[in-house]
Structures are given as structure tokens and as C-alpha cells.
């Protein structure tokens, strides 16, 4: 049998493979921060996508006209000032002078108009268009001043304009690159685009000429890191491993993974308590859920604390209002007065009153029809666990629930059709406009009954610009929705990010974006 020869052959085979292994420890000289993306962004063309991943990337490359402070008020950023017209359908902006794009060209009103035009242009078919549908046009007034015209007073305009997808692209660059621009963006932000290894990695480098115009930022000049690397890591397990080997500076992880790293001194936990989202149950309004009493039953029967524990390991807060905590306009008084805490006894009493009698095995029935209902949701570990709790809560009061989940693209359109009684859903949004988008009759799934009063209130939410007035209207909206029990709010979860212990200033602003120019490692 071969011995020496085989051994030598094996050595010869393994030797070249060692050569391809990258040498470790080289990256120390470069001041680099590495983050995780859960998917490859489809394009980095600002104004052409509403995807959260794309927005995260754009946030490195673009500053916007305004930012939102911690009270929810718009503050000047790239814009110096602005004013509303009499009828509140127009906003005139003045830009600060001296802002340049990464390619050296100036940010002026023409560049702004270029951006809004491309959003409005039906040929580009931008999804952002639907978000800001009330916008009609943008005109240049002076070299550094422009005006936005809306078809109606649009209360959410300022909040939207602060979002990363309203950062500006250098018109020169767009014209030069044409269709390829999305792969080579040019903005005005703290970092500049360097390279994109399709599907695996994006690299941004520091913008040495950057000036930070936001007073709430710590670093007023060029960012601390030389380079940012964004790695596309869809698998939670892989991201977790990469954090442990130090290959990621920070990563947003699911909460049960977080628990394992909580005690580890090498890592820090950053919780975004300003998160604006809501997990809620909505109704199909088909019998028996066209009856307000039944909806009340469900509302009292859900143990929100238990769901928060199960789905998010308690990183979040129970919410009794249809608006998320953290959105200005959230009215705690309305929530406690019209919201329903966990009260299974009350739920049972309501069921008895409505004529649903428990059978021999505990399952309730009325007029020969059993209390068996269907809840739909999208497939996700969070919803899976929430549904388990809801199922058991409702079983406790004698209602049997069947559960079905599917991927979002199947679930959401299916709510337009029959076959479901309740849906477990979730929104992420920064403005009370979400109430209008979802619940102004006929509602986002076209199943809400006509209701003139509700429509009036929710339209007012959309179009009341005066902050004080709007506050009132938003409170009314919350009350109206709760009184009618149109839905059952459950909780707001706080995003949890695990960072290396030495990472500093990794914080979230009002719109849940990181001020990337501030972030640094403690030993730099």
C-alpha cells in the first residue's frame, strides 16, 4: 500500500489551499467599521426605492433637507429655512450655500428639482411616488431656493422629506452614468461610494470635505472611520458568528440571539427605544366580527405582555393605542381610557352576553355555530410566537383559532379576499399618517364599513399642518379607532443592536437612523 507517496501527494494537494486563505490581522491599520445588511439592496439610486435596506445604505451617502428632532419637529439640515403658503399647499425652501456633491458639483435648487422630477416622472415609475402622492411639482425660484407644490395640504410631507430616499443625487453623475447610476451613487453625505461587489459587499469611504450641519451631531467634520464595509448576510447564524469573530462592528439581531450575548463583556447592547412600529390584529369585518361586541371580546382576551415576552424577549412596550409609542401625537390618556387591558374574565362575560355558550369541551357556540376562527399572518418567527400566545389566550375563553402563515407577498394580497377572520400584521412608519393610510374607510384591505365621521377625522390627520391642531386631530383619530374597535393594538418592539464593546456613539435618531459620522471605535 502506498505510504510515502500518498503522504506527499496529500501535502501537495493541501499546500495550495493554504495559500488562498487570507492572512488575518491585516485590517487593523485601516479604521474600518463593518455592518450587516440582511439583503442586497436592489439599487442605490436615491428616490427610486422604499426598501428599508436601501434606506440604511443611502443614509451613509446622503444628507437631506431637514432632520426630525427628538420631539418630532422638523429642523434645518441642508435647507436653511422654509415657509408654507397660505393654503398650505406649497412649501418654499432655502438651501444653505456651499454644499457639494462627492463629485465636486454644487448642490443647488436645480439639483433638488432634478431629484423631485425623477420621482414624479412616470417613466421612472418610482415606488417613492406613491409615498408622496400628494406632491405635484417642484420649481426653482432662485439658485438656492425652490418650491414644492402639493395637490392638497399634506401633513406628512416634512417627515417624509427627512427620510434617506430624499437625499439628492448629483445630476451630472446621473446623466453620465444613465441606467448604471444606481450602482455608482453620488451624494452629499459623510461617506462616499467606493465599490459594490454585487450581492456580497458594499464599501464606502470617508468624505474628507464633509461638513455636518446638524447641531444634534457630535462630530461636525469629516467622519471618524476611513471606510465602511456593509456585508450582505441574510442568515442570522452567520451574522452572529461574524460578530463573535470581530468581523462585524455591529449587527441587528433577533432577540433570542441577543439574550445569549447580553452577559458577554465583549459586546454592548443598543436598544432603540424610539422605534415606531406596531404589531396589531385587524378584523375582516365578516360575521361575527362585524359585531363590535365580538371585537371587544378579542381585545380583552389578548395578553400583550405574554406576546411581548414570547416574540421579543420583552424588548419593547405594550401598546393600547393604534398609534405607536414614540410618534408624537401618541395620546396616553386616550390609550388608557379607550384601550383594553388584559381581562379574560371580561372577555368571557361579553361572550356570554352575546350568546356564545361554552359546550361540553369548553368550545363556545351560538345558534349551532362553533366559535372557530382563522387568523392569518406573514411567516416570521415573531408572528409564529405571537400567534401561539394568541391561540392559547383565545382557547382559554373558549374560542378555537386556526392559524396560517405565508410569505408577505402571498399573505398581504390574500387579505383582499375571503377566508380569514383576523389578521396579525405590523407596520413601521414615522408619522400618524399611517392611521389614515390603513383605516380610512374602506381601509387598506377594503373591508371597512363606510363611516363619514371616521373618514373626516382621518382626512384631517392627513391635511392638518398646524402642529397643535394636528395633535388634537390625531388624538381624536386614536379615540375614534379605539371606540369602534377597528383593530387590536398589541405592542411596539424596540430594535436591538449588538455592537462590539468598543464601538461608540452608535445611536438612533428620531427616524431610527444612525448618525454615521459620529460612530467610532474607542481605540482610534
Amino acid at each position, binding site marked *: 500500500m502506498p505510504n510515502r507517496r500518498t503522504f506527499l501527494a496529500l501535502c501537495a494537494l493541501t499546500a495550495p489551499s493554504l495559500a488562498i486563505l487570507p492572512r488575518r490581522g491585516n485590517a487593523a491599520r485601516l479604521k474600518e467599521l463593518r455592518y450587516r445588511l440582511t*439583503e442586497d439592496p436592489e*439599487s442605490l439610486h436615491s428616490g427610486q426605492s422604499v426598501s428599508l435596506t436601501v434606506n440604511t445604505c443611502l443614509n451613509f451617502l446622503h444628507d437631506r433637507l431637514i432632520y426630525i428632532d427628538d420631539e418630532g419637529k422638523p429642523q434645518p439640515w441642508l435647507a436653511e429655512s422654509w415657509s408654507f403658503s397660505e393654503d398650505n399647499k406649497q412649501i418654499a425652501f432655502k438651501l444653505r450655500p456651499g454644499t457639494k456633491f462627492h463629485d465636486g458639483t454644487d448642490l443647488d435648487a436645480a439639483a433638488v428639482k432634478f431629484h423631485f422630477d425623477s420621482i414624479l416622472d412616470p417613466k421612472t415609475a418610482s*415606488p417613492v411616488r*406613491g409615498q408622496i*402622492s400628494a406632491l405635484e411639482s417642484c420649481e426653482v425660484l432662485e439658485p438656492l431656493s425652490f418650491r414644492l407644490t402639493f395637490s392638497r395640504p399634506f401633513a406628512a410631507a416634512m417627515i417624509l422629506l427627512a427620510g434617506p430616499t430624499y437625499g439628492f443625487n448629483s445630476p451630472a453623475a446621473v446623466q453620465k452614468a444613465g441606467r448604471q447610476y444606481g450602482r455608482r451613487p453620488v451624494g452629499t453625505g459623510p461617506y462616499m461610494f467606493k465599490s459594490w461587489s454585487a450581492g*456580497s459587499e458594499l464599501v464606502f469611504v470617508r468624505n474628507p470635505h464633509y461638513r455636518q450641519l446638524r447641531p444634534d451631531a457630535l462630530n461636525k467634520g469629516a467622519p471618524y472611520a476611513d471606510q465602511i464595509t456593509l456585508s450582505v448576510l441574510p442568515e442570522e447564524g452567520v451574522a452572529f*458568528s461574524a460578530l463573535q469573530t470581530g468581523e462585524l462592528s455591529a449587527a441587528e439581531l433577533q432577540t433570542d440571539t441577543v439574550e445569549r450575548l447580553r452577559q458577554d463583556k465583549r459586546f454592548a447592547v443598543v436598544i432603540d427605544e424610539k422605534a415606531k412600529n406596531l404589531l396589531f390584529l385587524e378584523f375582516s369585518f365578516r360575521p361575527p366580527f362585524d359585531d363590535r361586541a365580538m371585537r371587544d371580546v378579542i381585545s380583552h382576551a389578548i395578553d400583550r405582555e405574554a406576546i411581548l415576552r414570547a416574540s421579543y424577549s420583552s424588548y419593547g412596550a405594550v401598546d393600547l393605542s393604534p398609534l405607536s409609542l414614540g410618534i408624537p401625537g401618541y395620546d396616553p390618556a386616550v390609550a388608557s381610557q379607550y384601550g383594553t387591558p388584559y381581562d379574560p374574565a371580561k372577555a368571557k362575560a361579553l361572550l356570554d352576553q352575546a350568546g356564545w355558550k361554552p359546550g361540553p369541551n369548553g368550545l363556545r357556540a351560538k345558534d349551532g355555530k362553533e366559535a372557530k376562527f382563522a387568523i392569518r399572518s406573514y411567516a416570521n418567527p415573531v408572528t409564529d410566537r405571537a400567534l401561539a400566545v394568541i391561540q392559547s389566550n383565545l382557547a382559554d375563553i373558549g374560542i378555537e383559532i386556526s392559524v396560517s402563515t405565508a410569505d408577505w*407577498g402571498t399573505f398581504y394580497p390574500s387579505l383582499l379576499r375571503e377566508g380569514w377572520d383576523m389578521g396579525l400584521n405590523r407596520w413601521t412608519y414615522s408619522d400618524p399618517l399611517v392611521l389614515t393610510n390603513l383605516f380610512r374607510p374602506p381601509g387598506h384591505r377594503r373591508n371597512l364599513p363606510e363611516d363619514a365621521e371616521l373618514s373626516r377625522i382621518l382626512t384631517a390627520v392627513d391635511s392638518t399642518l398646524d402642529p397643535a391642531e394636528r395633535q388634537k386631530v390625531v388624538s381624536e383619530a386614536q379615540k375614534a379607532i379605539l371606540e369602534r374597535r377597528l383593530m387590536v393594538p398589541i405592542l411596539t418592539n424596540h430594535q436591538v443592536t449588538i455592537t462590539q464593546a468598543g464601538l461608540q456613539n452608535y445611536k438612533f435618531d428620531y427616524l431610527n437612523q444612525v448618525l454615521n459620522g459620529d460612530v467610532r471605535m474607542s481605540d482610534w
Partner: protein
Amino acid sequence: MSRYVLRRLLMALPVVVGILLVTFMIQAVIPTDAVSAMYEGQTTEEEAAEAIAAMRQRYGLDQPWYVQFTRYAGNVLHGDFGESIRLRRPVSEEIGYRFVNTLQLTGAALLIGILIGVPMGILSAAKKDTWLDVGAMTVGLLGISMPAFFFGLLLILIFAVWLQWIPVVPRGGAALLLPALTLGLIEAAPLSRIARSAMIEILRRDHIRAARSRGMGEMSVILRHALPGTLLAVMTVIGLQFGNLLGGAFIIEVIFGWRGIGELGVKAIQWRDFALTQAIILISAGAHISANLLVDVLYAWIDPRVDYNA
């Protein structure tokens, strides 16, 4: 020989057209399309109605399905696979590099699988019913039963986190190592079992006994007389596996972030992006057909008993 190949290719053509037609029809039945998929959850359909209608018109989605199909088929003949609605670029651009990536991964994995699996199977057959045989086949069984995603994560844990031999997020050439190893080891398992049973069966044959009677050592007998037949059997399996692998070792691709067509296929379906999905299906079908054809041709070339003109 070339006539044989040509004939097989011609026979494959109606298969491809049929697949294309069926996929197209399925997509015509599905209620949503890429355009509405893009807007879901972002805004109400009313607000987006205008934009959605514009997009639909631009991509010809408002036409009846047979019109769309004829247009598509015509384009394909010119090499134009349409534009991905979600990605806003021509499908061929996106598919091009991804297909190469998948080929790399598949090729490397198959190579690893063959280099590990076939010798293991042969050794097991030669030392049948010894500890080596039992051990190897048990490990093989593990390989077949182990889910790919678990195995992949396990290898990352072992090699990147514990041993730290490679980074979790490798760059450059090293990025191929773990995914190819995962897929390769998973492939090695069935290959080793097939090699083993093929070899065991061949070792029973008369000509093996005759070779032994001439005083050929066991290793010589195996390598010279049993191996060619075994490799023929293994080759059939490899051909089938290759087709499957090309169709998308998508689980491995997703875990390791390997940008291949399998991973793209999963996304394309979620996005309801017809042009992408269609192109990927076409490629998968083409891959299967090519792999099978290749195996047949190799057979005809290697095994003197096979007649090309049959």
C-alpha cells in the same frame, strides 16, 4: 457521434418550449405581479394606483397572457430575456454573473464530492463489512440526512469561529471554500454509497473472479477491472446531481451569501418578478438537459458496448 448529439439536442427543444409555456401560464394565473409586489406594505394601492398602472403598461403586463408569451418568445430568440422589474435592469446582466457563480460553486462542490465520496465508496466496498466500511457508510448516512443549512452553519462554527482558520465573511477566492465544502460533503454521501454498491455488484461478477484466479492482487483487481464499471455507474448519478446542483443549491447560496442563480431564483419568486423567474427556470431546464446529454455522450464515448446510432 455528432449526429447523435444533434438529434438529442433537437429532441430537447420541445421540452424547453413546453417548460416555458407552462411557467408562463402559471404566472398568468397568479393574482399578484411584480409591480404590486413592490408596493405592498409601503403605501395604499390607491395612492400608488397611477404609478402601478404606468409600470404595468411599460412592461406590457396589461396584455393577455398569450400576447405576452409570443412577445417574450420572440425576444428570447434574439437573446433578450426582458427586464427585471424589481431590479430595473436587463435580466441577462443579472443572470450572467450569477450563473457563472453557480457554475463555480457547483463545479467545486462536485469535485470535492467526487474526490471524497468515490474513493470512500470504493474503499468501503473493498473492505466490506469491516469497521472502515461501517464507519464510512454511517458517516455517509449522516451526510444524506443532515439538512444543508444546518451543516453549513455547523461548518462555519467549526472553521470560522472555533478554529478561526477562515473568516466568517470571507472575501475573494476564499469565499468559495466553505460553501463548496458544505455542498461537496453533502454530495459525497450519496456518491460514496452509489460507488460502494456499484463496486460491490461488480466485484461479484465473473470477470473479477477470473482476474483473481490469474493472481491479480485485490487492489489491482479493483483499480483495473472494477473501477471502470463503477465509475460508469457513478457517472450517471453525477450527471443527475449536476443538473440538480445547477438548478440551484439555493440553500447553500442563501446561507453563505453566494450570489448564484438559485439564490436569485428564490428572491425572484418572492418578488413575483416574472422575467427573472422565467429566465432562471429556462436556465435550470437547460442545465438539466445539458448535463444529461453530457453524461450520455460520455457514456457512449467511454463504454465500448454502447452504440451511438441507437
